């Protein structure tokens, strides 16, 4: 059953119109004949669909349009073109710590946020102790929100938002909240929610997190949809892109190209494993430099060598599957 569907979703921002530049600049620009409302497509023709139980990871560099797309999915924004179809109720965990009131206490903020998220008073009253316990803020209940540390703020936000039992769960960079212990705890909580068969979307700058949690993946770049498909394929291709220096980066042109770029990373990864096993890797090399060097090595390899590594990888995969 399709739970979430985006059909040709495009979102446009306008800048430089009368309201934003003011009358003075408007008149000056008009007189010079330079007045122009600038359009900016944060997302352009994004199309994908998710079945029940799917977990989608959205990857892309800064300004790719990930958060804007999430706003369209949650209904905060309406797409300029195209449509978003959702079945069931949505819980969105977007930029958690914003929207709290610094002048109110932790207790008051908890109730306010609960109300904003659409919980009932009864529900919040029942769950209040649990929220505070999960956020580890028992000693701070009557402190003003502005007196909390930024980690505490995020923890509270996460605890309130995670109570829900939604059909669709949307997570925007929320798993990087708090210290290591809390990160583990929150990842556990998310996993237990996902285990109930909800459909989810995760935006993360950690490709590893996407690999761990998602079965499908969407790659955006400057508002354009680069690829949508199974996580290993997309994540490998995206990693190749990410580890290549900015001036040499290249986006895949078609399906075949995507597969090729993806394979490049897989082979480079295997080379890296071998290197480390043999202790032949240069000691003071940064991760980025190392991966890029390995990617270049892959390019220099002959097709025979490549297929040999491929076979090794396939054998290894089989081995882990049997285990």
């Amino acid at each position: 059953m399709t739970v979430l569907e985006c059909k040709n979703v495009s979102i446009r921002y306008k800048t430089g119109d009368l309201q934003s530049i003011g009358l003075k600049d408007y008149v000056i620009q008009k007189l010079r004949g330079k007045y122009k409302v600038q359009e900016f497509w944060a997302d352009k023709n994004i199309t994908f669909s998710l079945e029940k139980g799917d977990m989608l990871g959205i990857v892309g560099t800064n300004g790719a349009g990930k958060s804007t797309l999430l706003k369209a999915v949650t209904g905060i924004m309406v797409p300029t073109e195209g449509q978003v179809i959702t079945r069931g109720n949505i819980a969105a965990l977007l930029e958690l710590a914003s929207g709290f009131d610094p002048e109110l206490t932790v207790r008051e903020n908890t109730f306010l946020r609960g109300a904003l998220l659409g919980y009932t008073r009864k529900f919040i009253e029942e769950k209040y102790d649990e929220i505070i316990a999960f956020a580890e803020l028992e000693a701070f209940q009557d402190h003003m929100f502005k007196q909390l540390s930024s980690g505490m703020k995020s923890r509270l936000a996460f605890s309130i938002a995670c109570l829900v039992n939604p059909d669709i769960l949307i997570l925007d960079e929320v798993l990087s909240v708090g210290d290591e212990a809390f990160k583990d705890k929150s990842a556990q909580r998310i996993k237990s929610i996902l285990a109930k068969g909800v459909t989810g979307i995760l935006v993360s700058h950690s490709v590893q997190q996407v690999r761990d949690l998602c079965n499908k993946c969407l790659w955006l770049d400057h508002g354009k949809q680069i690829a949508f498909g199974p996580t290993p394929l997309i994540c490998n291709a995206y990693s190749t892109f990410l580890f290549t220096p900015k001036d040499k980066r290249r986006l895949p042109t078609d399906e075949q190209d995507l597969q090729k770029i993806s394979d490049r990373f897989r082979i480079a990864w295997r080379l890296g494993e071998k290197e480390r096993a043999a202790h032949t890797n240069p000691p003071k090399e940064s991760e980025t430099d190392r991966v890029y060097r390995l990617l270049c090595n892959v390019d220099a390899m002959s097709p025979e060598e490549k297929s040999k590594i491929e076979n090794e990888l396939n054998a290894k995969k089989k081995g882990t599957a049997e285990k």
Partner: protein
Amino acid sequence: MLEKLKKNRFLFEELVKRDFKKKYKRTVLGMLWSLLAPLLNVLILMLVFVNIFGRTQEHFIIYIFCGTLVMSFYTEATQGCMRALMANAPIFTKINVPKYLFLLSKTFQAFINFALTLVIFIIFCIGDKIHFGIHMFSLIYPILFLLVFCFGVGMVLSALFVFFRDVEYLYSIFLTLLNYVSAIFYPVTILPENLRHIFYINPVYVYIFYFRCVVIDGYMPSLAIHILAAAYAAIFLLAGCLLYKKCNHEFLYYV
């Protein structure tokens, strides 16, 4: 539908609580200011108009008080609403909530103030030997529509304010003007009889007039005034709702 209403009610209550707490934060007298401020205001007007300008018209204090009572509610509610949408931008750009609730909370807050002022007003009425009868209950009518009217104007203003911040400056000037054209501290007899109906173009004056009729003169105004009071409220509420319906998803591009 009923569940949605219940959920929104919880949110409304929490917003009202928040707005109240923030309003009286760090004041020593707190809520007492809601009583004190209108009281002091009326005393000043009394001092100026009775002692300095020497007005001795019957029930003149009550005449002024009717004006300031309605006017201060209108001012507080509409100005509060105007800023409420922008002030809550961090919330509605992250969470999908019905935006009108922010305004409803501000209107309600102003209404509480109005109710407290009404208490002082009644004390003044007793002091001024105003006749209290069953007809006083008819004041519910203008109060109800004044409430709706303020909310409607607030919706229109708040939407415009998001698109043009200039509205804030324009509106404060407009309020000064409104203060002088609403016949708050002068009798309408300053205009010749045939021009006096101009006052009814001003919705705020209509509500003030209703109050004065009932409280000072002791009778209910004509049917035309009733229709006018309801119509102004309906027009602005409708305009506000339409504007919100049309711009609901435009706001976040401009905050």
